[in-house]
């Protein structure tokens, strides 16, 4: 009997200790999570500044996506040369968070080269009548003066990272066959992943982004506000 009570005491003490440690560890674990999130964001910011310093010393423009500021920017030699508001299409906030999480990944990546661009639909900048007049006055062939404004386009950074931009303009499909191929490829890439984020922007901004966003253009994500 005496031996049983020793066992009982042992188990009760063990149970109490386990409960106590569980209670004590609950706030500590949420603190440490907050700490680790804070230090991750500090580490990412430090990385971003250092990488941007490197990009700013080069002669080519680079893209900056700053979701907290709701802006896409182009910088050259560290100077802000272009900015436009981009706002997530309604109902795409979760995709946005997932996109930036996956952009950074476990390696805490802040900058990736653009690996693809697909213009899905476009509108012509100048109507035919204006184009003819301008071409005649300027003495150029109309094709040289015409600009295609992307009405819907995708930017791709590899690893299934893609972002869709929609300009507030009516456009027509650029290449129906190419679009089908792109859709199939995109559907395969997105299997088991959250869908890509969709941003809305102005036609002029879409034109600038398409023309600057050539393959290999470096894209920096700035999560600071």
């Amino acid at each position, binding site marked *: 009997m005496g031996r049983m009570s020793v066992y009982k005491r042992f188990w009760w003490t063990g149970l109490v200790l386990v409960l106590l440690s569980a209670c004590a560890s609950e706030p500590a674990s949420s603190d440490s999570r907050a700490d680790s999130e804070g*230090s991750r964001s*500090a*580490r990412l*910011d*430090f*990385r971003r*500044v*250092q*990488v*941007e*310093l*490197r990009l*700013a*010393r080069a*002669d080519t*423009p680079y893209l900056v996506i700053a979701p907290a500021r709701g802006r896409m920017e*182009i910088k*050259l*030699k*560290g*100077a*802000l*040369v*272009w900015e436009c508001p981009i706002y997530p299409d309604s109902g795409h906030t979760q995709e946005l968070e997932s996109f930036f999480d996956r952009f950074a990944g476990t*390696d*805490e*990546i*802040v*900058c*990736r*080269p653009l*690996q693809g661009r697909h213009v899905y639909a476009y509108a012509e900048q*100048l109507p035919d009548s204006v184009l003819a007049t*301008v071409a005649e*006055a*300027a003495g*150029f062939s109309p094709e*040289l*003066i015409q*600009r295609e404004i992307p009405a819907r386009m995708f930017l791709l950074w*590899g690893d299934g990272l893609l972002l869709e931009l929609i300009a507030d303009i009516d456009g027509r499909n650029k290449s129906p066959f190419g679009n089908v191929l792109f859709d199939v490829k995109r559907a395969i890439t997105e299997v088991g992943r959250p869908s890509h984020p969709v941003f809305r922007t102005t036609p*002029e901004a879409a*034109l*600038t982004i398409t*023309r*600057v966003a050539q393959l290999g253009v*470096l894209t920096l994500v700035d999560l600071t506000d």
Partner: protein
Amino acid sequence: MTRTSRWLYLAAPLIVISAALAVTAVTVGRTRDRRSTEAINAVNALPESADAAKKEMRHARAALDKLSPRGAYIVINTHANRIVLRTRHDVLLEASCSTGSGDTLVDTVTGRRWVFDTPRGTFKVSDKLEEPWWRKPDWAFIEEGEEVPADPRQRLDPYVMGDYALGFGDGYFIHGTIYERLIGVNVTHGCVRLASEDLARLYRDAPVGTPIYIF
């Protein structure tokens, strides 16, 4: 062996080789992309100690800050044909402009070739001129099918450049135009054309030395 199965025997290795080549190309491409991404992102880690981290962060921010211009600067967006005079935080002037057409002219006699692009990169306002006269280069005559004059006085044109011109090196200017209806379209030979009111404001507010960023 039927004709179909013979074709299959011939086609099968080709399909396998093509698939293997495609997979190799994709793998090589992905490895190269991963390496370039790693190389860009290879930077110093944030120090463990909070004080050291703050200090490092301050230094990095200050270095980045130094690269950005302190005062006003001009930005020319050749893609959308827009010109902006701005500071870091404020836009002082924003207007439509015309930039290079990208057209090519070849002199069939001498074989000389010109590409009419606006140069991209960073520049500075090097000189400012009032009532500028255009000294027509050779291509201006060749483009019109005229003979290049031997007398330099025959190259001067007092009318086409508008009231002001801001030079940014190598014969390139931001200037006015008599073809204001073409503003906003890529029609120039490399210079940047502005409507007269916008040009007057830019001339007034951008002193010699103002940085110019063209992209």
